[in-house]
């Protein structure tokens, strides 16, 4: 039997609009993944610490406030410092095209903008994470 994919869904920054994060968490769970939802107002340090503790393969960050350029690079940097560069980081939220491109160049695996289907997110994560036996 294959081990289910483990995903940390995190909501960094001061924003409390968690509709998207919660919908994604449920959709990933319904798709058979193990989902840990951090709750609100997580600093990059808290997120990377939780990812380490929970031994996840994917971190999903939900950001709507425009603070992504301050938050996401810091998460990537902390992951590298912890030797966790193999953890896939996906970002969802209000991320303008040019910022999405820049974040991907810095190491984000995928950016999902408004209107992205749940199905496309599930499929991406399945394809991005190597199967563990």
């Amino acid at each position, binding site marked *: 039997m294959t081990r289910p994919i483990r995903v940390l869904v995190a909501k960094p*920054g*001061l*924003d*409390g*609009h*968690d*509709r998207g994060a*919660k*919908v994604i*968490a*449920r*959709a990933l*769970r319904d798709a058979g993944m193990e989902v840990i*939802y951090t*709750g*609100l*107002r997580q*600093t990059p340090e808290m997120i990377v610490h939780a990812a380490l503790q929970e031994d996840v393969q994917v971190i999903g960050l939900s950001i709507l*406030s*425009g*603070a*992504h*350029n*301050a*938050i996401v690079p810091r998460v990537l940097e902390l992951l590298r410092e912890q030797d966790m560069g193999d953890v896939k980081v996906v970002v969802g939220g*209000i991320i*303008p095209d040019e910022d999405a491109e820049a974040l991907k160049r810095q190491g984000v695996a995928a950016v999902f*903008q*408004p*209107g992205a*289907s*749940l*199905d496309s997110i599930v499929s991406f994560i399945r394809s991005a994470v190597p199967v563990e036996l």
Partner: protein
Amino acid sequence: MKTAERQFTTISGVPIEPLYEPDPQLEPPPPPGEFPYTRGIHRDMYRGKLWTMRQFSGFATPEETNRRYHYLLAQGQTGLSVAFDLPTLMGYDADHALSEGEVGKCGASVSSLEDMEILFQGIPLGDVTVSMTINSPASVLWAMYLAVAEKQGVERVRLSGTLQNDILKEYIAQKEYIFPPRPSMRLVTDTIEFGARHTPRFNPISISGYHIREAGSTAVQELAFTLRDGIEYVDWAIERGLAVDEFAPRLSFFFNAHSDFFEEIAKYRAARKIWAQVMRERYGSRNERSAKLRFHAQTAGCSLTWQQPYNNVVRTTLQALAAVLGGAQSLHTNSLDEAYALPGEHAVTLALRTQQVLAYESGVANTPDPLGGSYFLEKLTLQTEEAANDYIRRIDAMGGMIAAIDAGFPQTEIAGASYRYQREVESGERTIVGVNRFQSADQPIELLQIDEASARHQEKKLAALRERRDNGQVRQALAALERAAQGTDNTMPFLLDAVRAYATLGEICDSLRSVFGVYQETAHL
């Protein structure tokens, strides 16, 4: 993609009959201006006075937002509505570590009385009504506003406007809370009491369903949770020793204007009816102004799409029309670019013009409740009322809204509705034009960009302020505030002293955090 079989339900899932016919059981509602005000709170509605066109606005620094306000007033907008940034909403100064990356992004950055003075420079607060969207630290920002009015020489009795100040919906939906529910309710009650005594024309609270709906609730959930929140505030104010008719005429409401046209109109009509009955039957109110539910409406931000953004103008127009046909007292129309960013000047002007076309060209404002008597709408109004009253009774049985929040009840109900809706979109049962059907390549639109220069500007101003002010006076004012918070005095006079001494928002909220603690929610998926 496959086209699913057409579902004849409202966007909230209420089944719609093939035909509505006269129903002898259904008594027609009394005329507008008569209890329970189903058809509107005034006999003449918009013939007497049009709704207030109030565009929610704020970005970057108080200086830049002040320029936008002067622009909007010059374009014929009739009231102001302040959007604050996330650090301000969460009670942090612009130079706090947690504010990094967030300053000025979602609204104007206001960390001190100095910023509030700049925000309203050249705007006579005795003449313009101002709404402020601020919740957990609402009493602090209101104190700053009152202090600016003092400096302008405007008497408090002349001040007119609205403080959002609705903390319950933060725990339920929007999640911008600082303190736990009970001390937060005490702060809200302080403002209601202070308002009843000192600012007779100011609404100290705007009990809001908007954010509940944005979080994914159904129309009925929005209505029921909002009105039950209203009941909670009334209970606390009465517990404080106020008589219902001393403060209830100044309770105001705020609803979403979502996409399902008739469902929304039915919601506003049911809201007025339920509230009027609550006032008369539950509280024995005898002042008809207490029983008249006044509300602001904003078109649904969550309905705007990133794809084909010009479609958003059409969505917003229909939603605004529903709010007007539902008898709103003031209205915000979203801008076409708001799925991406705060609105640019061109987009916000078009949104305001949408309201002006409705008001002056469409003819819909010529007679009150023009849809009254529609077989369908009257039936839907009744169904909405009954379903909302069911929820209200369930929450009563739980011991009230705070107990329900502690149990995660409204949060779980909303999360369930939001997930169901997303699944319907996913399966194609719900069509979103340009997103899951009728897709085409997008035209790029011009967006408002807010860079980190705003943050640096705010940090510099704060450093100079902390240098310039009398820090001994600040410490004294904060110590007095903490003592008041520990006791039972109304905190408003102490907040006024603190802001007049230029204690910052973050310092004041830290003082209150030290007394009240901070709230941590249990996440309900």
